């Protein structure tokens, strides 16, 4: 999966990929103060594309949990399940349904997306990417977006969560890279100096099919140097 970190203060974005084996679960967000956790499980293409050296990976399952509300939401490309201490509700991506309870609002928009809000100030959007069912290579996958995180604490961590706090980066020495349209540059971030490549990724919130191009500085090697520690530090055993 690819990650995009938008930095509005600089009107710029940083992006990176995490390449791991299908089945791996990554910690995306963990906030000990609000008790919110988001983990994502990776899936791969059905098989490698003949013109691609590596197998593409995506998120196929997401787990959103609130320890304070004793609540878990599991989102797959097939269904959405919501648990609390009493039991489980299961919804399909063919439903258009709004679920509300104290401190939670969850809306599934049929075959498009799901918007989850925890009170005021924390809102996530999950996008359903559907491909032709009989496609020989690709399969359905999910996108995860944080559209509001201002109520999340300064202790929030995870592959996405660590970037909720303000951070600074500088890019200099822009020079031609291996591809003519993608220049390389030097980025200084978190007191580290990295070689980055100008590229673009797509934001699918508005248009789940075509997406909107987001220009970003790409950090190589699984975000090494940008993320705290190494990407394997974010591997967790289970979705919850």
């Amino acid at each position, binding site marked *: 999966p690819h990650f995009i970190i938008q930095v509005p203060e600089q009107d710029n974005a940083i992006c990176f990929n995490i390449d791991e084996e299908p089945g791996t679960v990554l910690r995306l967000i963990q906030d000990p103060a609000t008790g919110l956790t988001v983990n994502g499980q990776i899936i791969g293409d059905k098989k490698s594309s003949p013109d691609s050296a590596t197998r593409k990976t995506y998120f196929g399952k997401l787990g959103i949990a609130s320890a304070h509300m004793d609540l878990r939401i599991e989102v797959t490309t097939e269904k959405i399940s919501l648990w609390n201490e009493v039991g489980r*509700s299961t919804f399909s991506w063919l439903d258009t349904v709004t679920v509300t309870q104290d401190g939670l609002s969850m809306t599934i928009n049929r075959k498009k997306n799901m918007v989850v809000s925890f009170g005021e100030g924390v809102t996530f959007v999950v996008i359903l990417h559907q491909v032709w069912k009989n496609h020989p290579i690709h399969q359905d996958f999910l996108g995860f977006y944080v559209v509001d995180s201002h109520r999340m604490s300064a202790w929030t961590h995870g592959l996405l969560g660590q970037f909720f706090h303000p951070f600074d980066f500088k890019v200099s020495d822009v020079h031609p890279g291996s591809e003519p349209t993608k220049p390389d540059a030097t980025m200084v971030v978190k007191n580290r100096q990295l070689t980055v490549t100008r590229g673009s990724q797509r934001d699918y919130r508005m248009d789940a099919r075509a997406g909107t191009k987001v220009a970003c500085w790409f950090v190589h090697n699984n975000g090494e140097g940008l993320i705290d520690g190494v990407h394997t530090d974010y591997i967790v055993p289970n979705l919850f």
Partner: protein
Amino acid sequence: RLLGKRSLPEGAVNGIEIYSTKINCKVTSRFAHNVVTTRAVNRADTAKEVSFDVELPKTAFITNFTLTIDGVTYPGHVKEKEVAKKQYEKAVSQGKTAGLVKASGRKLEKFTVSVNVAAGSKVTFELTYEELLKRHKGKYEMYLKVQPKQLVKHFEIDAHIFEPQGISMLDAEASFITNDLLGSALTKSFSGKKGHVSFKPSLDQQRSCPTCTDSLLNGDFTITYDVNRESPANIQIVNGYFVHFFAPQGLPVVPKNVVFVIDVSGSMYGRKLEQTKDALLKILEDMREEDHLNFILFSSDVTTWKEHLVQATPENLQEARAFVKSIQDQGSTNLNDGLLRGISMLNTAREEHRVPERSTSIVIMLTDGDANSGESRPEKIQENVRNAIGGKFPLYNLGFGNNLNYNFLESLALENDGFARRIYEDSDANLQLHGFYEEVANPLLTSVEMEYPKNAILDLTQNSYQHFYDGSEIVVAGRLADEDMNSFKADVKGHGALNDLTFTEEVDLKETEAALKEREYIFGNYIERLWAYLTIEQLLEKRKNARGEEKENLTAQALDLSLKYHFVTPLTSMVVTKPEDNEDQTAIADKPGEEQAQAASQTSFSAYRTSYQPPLGSAASYQPPLGTPYYYVDGD
């Protein structure tokens, strides 16, 4: 030497040969349109009487009945009951043959008609009825009674089902199919939106033994199916009418607080009490730990198992089982105080937060007789119960046996958002009781409201329900104010076990209409007829509790729709008139109510046709003499 095959006697019985019986069913979106056609010929040298018997579900409305004799068809006309009655009485008073149709039984009504057929003549009976199949325990059930009086050369049940949501399962079973031979006559198949069941036994397959001339086709034929539920709701729109089916899946069961208000008066002595105890023990097995319960026993006095509702913990259930086993009959029937105690207990439990915030309350009352101790005036009991419940939860009444005022129980339940059910005194009464409990044991949503765009909808059927039960389905139909609208949106709001839910269904009208145009399967205006059926059913139900002007209005509306859509309801009768020997013969198809059905079964009416010869000289003003059986049973 001449070799001959011995020909088994077949066909004619007493000169009448029924050579064809066909039950043709077309189900489109749960709305079943059934046509039963029987063809017979009089092989005798003299005129003979030919009977036609059909048992149809109580929930069905007859929509047509025709007689065809020697190629001439005599159609049925639906008339207001009073008008039909006058016509019928006139025929009887003039000594003419008059046919009558009436009903009895648990699930079925019996339609019987006979005509005299001249020697060598052929007669065709064709009865059409329609019903909306209701979903119970996760499937729709279509019930057909099969009981031909003789071997029939061409016997066939042919059912075609068309469900736009797609069929997920289809099965057909007959109680009389006991061997592979007859099994081979049954085929069932489904694929996508279409399902088909065919039962076509040959003459030899119908014989009760290889050399017998009597038929083994005698019993229940049941078709069950369900539809795909990729989405919780489905809206269909055709010709300006819409139907909205709602049955969400995957929701947890809302914890329930149940009080069982049980009649233990002397009349419950013996098998009835034993069966009630058996059923309660079985129900206790099905209780979920998050549920709360109590037992209120009423006879002359009221006793309770516990002072308050208690949680269905394993320990409490163990204790409850011991209590149920110890129940004994005694005294008379103080129904009023029993019910009020149960209701007050539920109200207190809620006020004192003894039950979970997100839980729902239910009163289940079982009685086998009328109140005869304490407050016994039905109107006063109704008022007391209505005031005590205050619309907060439903009351379900189970009437055990025949010695009770079922209309009162039904009225009492209906005005408190529940319903009544008769428990038939039989060996399976405990199963009937448990079966009822299973229907209401799993509420998935409470306070369900179906909302449609204001000003866009007319003539909506009931759109709010206290509960949605697992395995059932809510059906709402209506008329679009503007047929040219492009899209249609419906919201369904309800409280679930965990949270509040709003399901939204949006449909593109043109797309929906185009998708439903599979002419081969759809009988024209099925949504409009489904809407009319549902509206009449609900008007008749409301009418049971209405008084004065409101009752008159409801009656007028239901009658108007019954006449317009040709439904034989408790307000209408169908009259078929045929000239015979230069005289009129009148047959009437009626829809009896619950009380009439019971009355009929108690007085063992077995003949539905009379051929009165009035006393000479009194034809014009004939009144049946006292003590003479009078064969008109009014369905209202």
